């Protein structure tokens, strides 16, 4: 039942207009044909009426309004200052002027910021997922005692605000000499995110097919071999999704970099952007360039991983 429904849905709206099967007797028709007929008779579950065009336009306008700030940043970042002053922010530039972007890039030493952000996010993605996977393995596959409470603890820990950990972490990192060092953030974010990752992976791993585990055990596999040659290969896709998320979350993080990385040379993209606000207010095109340059890496990332990201948004919220 549900399969025929979904196949009928996936067809474009105009399939309704096809008159196939209309001449057959009702009893001879397939469910699909019956469905089409009933819709046709009703005058349009799928019909494009004047009203439906109106709704399309309303929502389209809203969606355009939603992306317009990004569009404005883009348009004005490639506009020369003189042209901005004469024609204003809304008009399209008559010629593309990369000076704002180049100027901002050099002034903020953006290459350095990109490299810092990339390193932190990359190592957090690896280390955070590794910790999550090992812990989740013990919980989801090993079903160790007290697993419910460990997961509950992790889940609760994930909602603790950074402010409630930040100062002690700052002192600790100063003690071990990692203050103003990007690796302090690698450690902190790996652990904080692995609380979430463990929570998520544990529920994935607890649905792992028991037949496979039993078969491997009968073959004499210990928990290490089970992890390496059975569980890991089959969980790899999920781990990759998690890595994408850890990467982007770390990239976007603001508070802890703000506290942990005081010197300019260790700042991340997000941090330097947040601090740049207000710095170029007298040069609006510069600030547009700053915003654009900051957005581009994530936009690129979004375009590459769009499916993963959209799918992953619901990850862990409702199964």
């Amino acid at each position, binding site marked *: 039942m549900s399969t025929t429904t979904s196949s009928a849905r996936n067809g474009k709206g105009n399939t309704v207009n096809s008159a196939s099967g209309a001449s057959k007797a009702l009893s001879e028709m397939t469910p699909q044909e019956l469905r089409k007929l009933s819709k046709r008779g009703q005058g349009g579950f799928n019909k494009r009426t004047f009203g439906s065009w109106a709704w399309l336009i309303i929502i389209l306008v809203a969606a355009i309004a*939603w992306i317009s700030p990004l569009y404005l940043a883009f348009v004005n970042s490639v506009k020369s200052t003189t042209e901005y002053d004469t024609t204003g922010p809304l008009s399209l530039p008559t010629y593309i002027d990369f000076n704002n972007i180049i100027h901002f890039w050099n002034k903020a030493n953006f290459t350095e910021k990109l490299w810092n952000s990339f390193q932190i996010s990359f190592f957090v993605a690896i280390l955070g997922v590794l*910790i999550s996977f090992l812990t989740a393995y013990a919980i989801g596959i090993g079903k160790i005692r007290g697993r419910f409470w460990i997961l509950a603890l992790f889940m609760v820990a994930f909602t603790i605000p950074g402010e409630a950990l930040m100062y002690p972490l700052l002192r600790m990192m100063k003690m071990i000499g990692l203050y103003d060092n990007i690796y302090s953030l690698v450690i902190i974010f790996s652990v904080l995110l692995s609380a979430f990752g463990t929570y998520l992976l544990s529920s994935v791993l607890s649905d792992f097919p028991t037949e496979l585990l039993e078969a491997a055990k009968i073959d004499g596999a210990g928990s290490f071999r089970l992890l390496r040659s059975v569980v890991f290969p089959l969980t790899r896709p999920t781990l990759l999704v998690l890595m994408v998320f850890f990467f982007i979350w770390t990239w976007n993080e603001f508070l802890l970099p703000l506290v942990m990385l005081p010197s300019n040379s260790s700042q991340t993209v997000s941090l330097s952007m947040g601090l740049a606000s207000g710095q170029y207010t007298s040069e609006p095109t510069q600030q547009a360039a700053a915003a654009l340059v900051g957005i581009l890496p994530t936009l690129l990332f979004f375009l590459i991983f769009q499916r993963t990201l959209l799918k992953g948004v619901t990850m862990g919220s409702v199964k």
Partner: protein
Amino acid sequence: MTSVAPRVRKAEKAPKSPMQDTYWPWIVPGILLFVFIVVVPFFWNIYLSFTKWNGLGSPKWIGANNYVKLMGDDVFWQSFLHSIVFIISMAIIPTVLGLLISSALFDYLSPRFGNRVSTVMRAGFFLPQIIPIAIAGLLWSWMLSSQYGIINVTLVQWGIVPSTDEAPNWLGNASLAMLSVNVVLIWIQLGYTIVVFMSGLARGDQSIHEAAAIDGATWFQRFRMITINQLRPEIAVVLLTTTVAALKVFAPIYVMTQGGPGSATNVPAYFSYFNFIQTSNVGYGAAISTVLAIILIVLAIFLLRMQTRQQGNN
């Protein structure tokens, strides 16, 4: 579930095998790191909230004085009031708008204009979600700036106000700043709810919608009677997670207003940061963050209970 083959469910209890205990070493690194990075700092912070300390020398124990002071601090109460406003603009409004838009996209526009149309629009609404919040703040402070901002310059260009000096100061005026920040937060948050709700709708049984439509139910009737019911678990989870996010708001405030003008847009997270770092009132900052943490932990426990119940139902 109308499938004919009965689904045989595995017994829920794990088989008690002698191997069970060989798994615990795998959890050791994770737990150790967790203790060092979360548990120790958390309790250390609670300890600090009972002290007076400027970060130099050693903290001085002053009992519950910080909490007593907190209860009488207008800025503290004001910041929590702002958090409640943010719950409206980050949890309630995006949930309501998200329900309407996702349902309209999925249930009304997608069958008529094809899936591509709704996928592209969904991506448009989702775009602000992927921008780092600090950069979203930068973008908006550029648009809202009183002298050179895009909005005011356009207002002048269209002749609505004579000059930018007389245009509204969106972030600098105490009564407008809160409104502006809220608009930005709605802009950021809406995409999240739309994506979650649309995936919830895709999960559901579409034949109910079609059957209702065939019976002559209008879109709004279907929305009210079917969609809302179908998305009940998503709505609950979205409301809780976005409420948590609303209480944690820090970066947009830091970037756009620094809690100001005055304390017009101050929030607990920023107020705590301000005491920790800007004025070195470590004990007081710790007390604020501890109160915030406790509220969030209570919400997390709610969320946890809800999810375990849902998993039980499945």
